């Protein structure tokens, strides 16, 4: 075990030491820490601003978060295996004279570190949570603790499920069917609640507030632990912790005493993980398809452009292959969002939809087409001006923003009975902040490069992007809230759009060299 701990110890030490060589990253980490402190300690709303969080709604949110964080992860662990390891582990650890059990523990320790990092970012929600008067002062710590032990237990359970599934084909089928059976029970329960409540939202809330949930092992207990952030800590809180630790220990013991031979399965999974990490690092995509053959349409490559414009037409071709012109699966997603928001949004205001869409845009800004082009040398070597390369490689992303914006705002605009001018303003506002995200993204890519730590680099990029777009959002917020008539709203939108376009242009000039050097 000693050599394995050596790897962990040295990895952490070297990560810290390398910051000396990368002052930009160090500054950003410090910046990140300051923002975190500000959001935690200096931004707390005063008593008069505080509101009450509906316990029914809070329980639902906690339930949804637990489900989202665990169910897909556990199910995929049966098929794809637990992915604690990296390529280097396979080369140097798997081949070493160390027992598979010890290697599993080593993987598990690595997983604890990743879980801790993931939970760390919940601290950013400190401000939101402190706004509610019925959340305890130590509520945030309780939430973090609850999610942390949940992620750790899930990691152990994933290994156990995987170990059982990898023993035989029959086991895999049984486990898969068990999950499907549980899924069917949830769906049936949902429809029963839907029949009783006659409301899709109320049905979900009723389902997740069921009195049976605290009896569900571990995940029901985790929910109860997190709910202590509202209800306070009592004796039962410690009982739940003890139960979860005991369950984890039991799973661990079972794994340890099993005759494990998981290396072969891990090889394939780790390869996929390496591909995924490489993709994220190069900004290609966040989700990597696993082993499935890509479905593409047969499309003629007719218009090809010349020099830099060839990038634009190649990207169009790629879109055509995976969808219809620039309409793809993301467009379907936006249609669903627009229809849902149109019918169920409690506030019938397009500005609220715009705010939600900007948030989505921030999340999806890492999957843009221009980022994929950075992953191979062709774009750097293409014989054309740097400025033209940036313009042509981002044109498709800009057009896509106009299309996505049109889909969402035309649908919600019609359902909200908004005026055509307002719909148009929202589409332009969405597309303009989209271009700020694109060119801001190019600038952050130039500043940060690929980065060694995928998660931290991604967070840093998000933070930088937020800093770039924040003035536009503040400007819009102030002007919009202080406007009384249509003219005021119009001025708010026009100011917002003007800021976005001006700064996009400015940042474009600063970041245009991104396609000139592969070394960022």
């Amino acid at each position, binding site marked *: 075990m000693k050599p394995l701990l050596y790897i962990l110890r040295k990895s952490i030490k070297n990560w810290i030491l390398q910051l000396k060589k990368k002052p930009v990253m160090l500054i950003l980490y410090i910046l990140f820490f300051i923002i975190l402190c500000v959001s935690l300690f200096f931004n707390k709303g005063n008593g008069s601003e505080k509101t009450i969080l509906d316990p029914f709604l809070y329980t639902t949110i906690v339930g949804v978060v637990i489900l989202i964080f665990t169910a897909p992860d556990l199910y995929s662990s049966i098929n794809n295996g637990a992915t604690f390891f990296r390529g280097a582990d396979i080369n140097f650890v798997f081949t070493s004279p160390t027992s598979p059990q010890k290697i599993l523990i080593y993987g598990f320790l690595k997983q604890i570190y990743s879980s801790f990092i993931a939970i760390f970012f919940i601290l950013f929600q400190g401000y939101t949570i402190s706004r509610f008067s019925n959340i305890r002062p130590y509520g945030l710590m309780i939430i973090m603790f609850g999610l942390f032990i949940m992620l750790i237990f899930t990691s152990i359970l994933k290994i156990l499920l995987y170990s059982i599934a990898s023993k035989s084909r029959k086991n895999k089928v049984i486990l898969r069917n068990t999950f499907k059976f549980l899924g069917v029970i949830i769906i049936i329960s949902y429809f029963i609640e839907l029949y009783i409540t006659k409301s899709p939202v109320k049905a979900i809330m009723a389902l997740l507030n069921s009195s049976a949930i605290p009896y569900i092992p571990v995940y029901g207990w985790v929910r109860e632990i997190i709910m202590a952030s509202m209800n306070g800590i009592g004796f039962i809180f410690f009982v739940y912790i003890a139960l979860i630790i005991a369950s984890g220990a039991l799973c661990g013991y079972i794994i340890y005493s099993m005759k494990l031979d998981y290396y072969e399965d891990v090889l394939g999974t780790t390869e996929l993980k390496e591909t995924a990490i490489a993709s994220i690092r190069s900004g290609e995509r966040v989700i990597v398809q696993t082993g499935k053959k890509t479905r593409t349409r047969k499309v003629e490559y007719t218009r*090809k*452009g010349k020099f830099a414009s060839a990038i634009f037409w*190649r990207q169009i071709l*790629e879109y055509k292959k995976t969808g219809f012109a620039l309409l793809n699966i993301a467009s379907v997603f936006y249609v669903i969002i627009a229809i849902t928001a149109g019918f169920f949004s409690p506030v019938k205001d397009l500005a609220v939809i715009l705010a939600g869409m900007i948030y989505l845009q921030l999340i999806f800004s890492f999957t843009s087409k221009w980022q994929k082009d950075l992953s191979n040398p062709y774009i750097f*070597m293409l014989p054309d001006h740097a400025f033209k390369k940036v313009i042509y490689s981002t044109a498709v992303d800009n057009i896509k923003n106009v299309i996505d914006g049109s889909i969402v705002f035309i649908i919600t605009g019609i359902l909200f009975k908004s005026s055509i001018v307002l719909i148009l303003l929202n589409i332009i506002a969405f597309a303009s902040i989209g271009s700020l995200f694109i060119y801001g993204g190019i600038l952050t890519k130039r500043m940060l490069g690929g980065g060694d730590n995928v998660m931290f680099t991604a967070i840093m990029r998000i933070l930088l992007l937020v800093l770039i777009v924040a003035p536009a959002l503040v400007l819009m917020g102030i002007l919009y809230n202080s406007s009384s008539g249509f003219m005021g709203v119009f001025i708010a939108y026009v100011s917002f759009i003007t800021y976005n376009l001006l700064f996009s242009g400015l940042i474009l000039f600063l970041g245009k060299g991104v396609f000139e*050097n592969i*070394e960022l």
Partner: protein
Amino acid sequence: MLFVQNLIKKYGKELAVNNISFQVNEGEIAILLGPNGAGKSTTIKSIAGLLKYEGYIEICGHKNKSIDAKKIFAYVPEVSAMFDLLTVYEHLEYIAAAYGIEDYKTEAEELLERFDLSDKRAKLGKELSKGMMQKVSICCALLIKPKVILFDEPLMGLDPKAIKELKKAILELKENGASILISTHIIDSVDDFWDKVLIMKKGNIVLSGTKQELMSRNETLEELFFDVTEDK
């Protein structure tokens, strides 16, 4: 012609390439040899304009990062990367468009045939094996009909037929007056067709010369390599 003068490349404080100068004339095949970490790939990437560096690099009279230079030189990287959603043939079509090449179809077909890719022409980039990616990458580079071409470990992952064809293609490029720079650490793979050798060690060129100049030493390329790279 490829002209490199006082090339220096640092990664942080680490000196990867230490003030090297050389040139590769028209119709000349230069081999860049060296042990791992000698600075070969860094040199090649600097010439290809992919890295920031100090010094001066010229390709047929144009600065290497200029558009005019980029139009006439090609680079085959050590690790090939493809566009996931483009087929093999579409990669060639894209390169033709990106380099403004009008009549490329016959040449593209010949290249596909030559490197056994004709039946793989409809395969997507993400479905290709490493070797096949390398072949596509070579075809893309050859389609440009470059005046200067840089190969970084070009034979890695290729099957024997592809190796034979690539060597033939390199000799054809030489006959057409191209300047060719091949970086490798497998001496045997280039022993039969080099005109000039540049041996690197720890970022420096420790030996350079043409075949004629070095023949007087009565040593094989491998012996020369070990003479200058092994610590005594």
